[in-house]
């Protein structure tokens, strides 16, 4: 799929015939006409704002426990979404939890985007032995199912947030490199690159001016698609006890600590997961919107 995706995207920017409008302008305008993508964007914006402004918006202290007020049901007076197994306000913890969950979901994708694009450009542009070495080394990572790889790496490094971030980045880098490399290899052979080289442009400026513009699009689309996977995996690692450590609020970890309450207060126990789900589906739908908006020839 990445192959066809990359192929279809290579020639797009140059096909932009609308005068005085940049490619990204057209994409943004196209995106605004997709209702599903726009709704997802609004939902994401709300979640991000709630997480970002949690210290000012949240009704309570996320760490203040109360043995008397444990597992109060959703809709209790003073506790809109109830309290968790230690009597802490759920709404507050869900808002604060979004900070770490979003951070842990987004950071690995960003890191993989930068590392993967650089490696892919290098590998695709230089070609030859360098390409072979880089791609064969990355092939090894494909021999591991991604969840298994993430769990194994962060398990070996030991539980903790930064280790999970490293593990997830390592899982995504090879995938991004493959996309970037395949586009770069295709672009490199085009005539205008040859022309640029003949007119005396150095490798660095050819990559920066002529190659990067073609590569960023497909890689960007691929990376947006990774966001939801990353959210699910990051919270999953915390759910296993490999990511964020208690008492820090994080959706996956909250889901884990509330598991003992699935018989007494099932609604409460399912709540943190619902937020992971909403965020991940919003990321997915937005990514779909971006993908079809960038497919301008359609």
């Amino acid at each position, binding site marked *: 799929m990445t192959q066809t995706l990359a192929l279809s995207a290579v020639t797009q920017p140059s096909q932009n015939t609308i005068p005085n409008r940049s490619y990204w302008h057209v994409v943004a305008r196209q995106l605004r006409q997709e209702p599903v993508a726009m709704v997802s964007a609004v939902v994401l914006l709300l979640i991000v704002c709630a997480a970002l402004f949690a210290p000012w918006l949240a009704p309570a202290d996320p760490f203040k426990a109360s043995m008397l007020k444990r597992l109060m049901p959703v809709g209790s007076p003073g506790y809109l979404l109830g309290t968790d197994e230690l009597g802490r306000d759920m709404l507050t913890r869900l808002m604060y939890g979004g900070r770490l969950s979003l951070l842990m979901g987004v950071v690995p994708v960003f890191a993989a985007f930068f590392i993967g694009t650089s490696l892919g450009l290098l590998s695709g542009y230089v070609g030859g032995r360098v390409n072979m070495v880089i791609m064969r080394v990355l*092939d*090894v990572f494909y*021999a*591991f*199912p*991604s*969840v*298994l*790889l993430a*769990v*194994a*790496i962060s*398990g*070996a*490094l*030991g*539980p903790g947030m930064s280790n999970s971030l490293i593990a997830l980045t390592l899982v995504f880098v090879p995938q991004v490199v493959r996309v970037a490399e395949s586009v770069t290899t295709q672009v490199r052979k085009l005539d205008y690159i040859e022309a640029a080289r003949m007119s005396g442009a150095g490798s660095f400026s050819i990559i920066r001016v002529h190659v990067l513009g073609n590569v960023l699009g497909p890689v960007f689309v691929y990376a947006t698609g990774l966001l*939801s996977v990353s959210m*699910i995996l990051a*919270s*999953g690692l915390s*759910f*296993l*006890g*490999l990511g964020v450590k208690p008492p820090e609020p994080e959706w*996956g970890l909250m*889901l884990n600590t509330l*598991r003992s309450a*699935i*018989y007494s207060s*099932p609604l409460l*126990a*399912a709540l943190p*997961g*619902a937020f*992971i*789900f909403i965020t*991940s*589906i919003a*990321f*997915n*739908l937005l990514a*779909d919107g971006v993908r079809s908006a960038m497919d301008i020839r359609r």
Partner: protein
Amino acid sequence: MFAYILKRLFYALPIALSVTVVSFMLVYLAPGDPLNAIAPADAPADVIEALKSAYGLDRPVPVQYGLWLWRALQGDLGTSIASGRSVVSEVFSAVGNTLLLAGIASGLGVLVGCVLGALAGYKHGGGVDRAATALSVVGVSIPHYWLGLVLTIIFSTWLGWFPAMGAGPGGSTDWSWDWEHVRYLVLPSVTLSVIPMGIITRTVRALVADMLAQEFVVALRARGLGGMAVFRHVAKNTAPTVLAVAGLQVGYLMGGSILVETVFAWPGTGFLLNTAIFQRDMPLLQGTLLVLCMFFVGLNLLVDIVQPLIDPRMGRG
């Protein structure tokens, strides 16, 4: 064909070898001495030396790897530090349970995904298409560990139809194919099947819609072929791609089941990995990872070999 299989086997060998390297080197990612897990912090120097030579840790790393690989090839993956039993026996009983769960789940997911995807592809733009598309988006976006919890709440806590955890009555781990045992399989396998279901639905829908728009289908129809006959052609042309995607998904489920196994306390490799990680049982971690990945490599190889049987064009390339 024979040459093709040989070539594939030849390609798989370096991958398999590098998997062993990564599995082995994982221990050295861990901070601190690998001995930390075995020896108490205040152990006297001569005890530590004795332990080091007992585990072969006093030799250079490449030698250690060579020895480990040599023993692994003979079916010896060392001794679990946590339980004191041989890693091979621990891993194989757990792998059986994981393969059972992943196998049923992927069968279910691929079957439902193919049917839904084909229907959606045929009724492009209609109600069925929209429903299938929505379902596939949900399938790929849902955190499956959460879905497991939600299904437990609905079907176990509220309705009481299926047990919430374990793999047999009274916590037994001996599997048999009667209702008493199969009941335990229902919730975990349905939970796990959602991942391949979403992706297969998406793939099949796109492929079928694409195929139906092609000229050869128009030609077949123009020749007066009925719906079923045309469908046979479409199915034959989509099969290789679907097989490749499905094969990959089955493999991912072997790793992806870790989280679902934790939710349902299923006695598979997920449980084993958990033990290995939190008790810093490195031989167990290495062994489990190695066996799971070898299955994954083998599966990819199998898909590569089966594909040209369905689509002869691939064998020649």
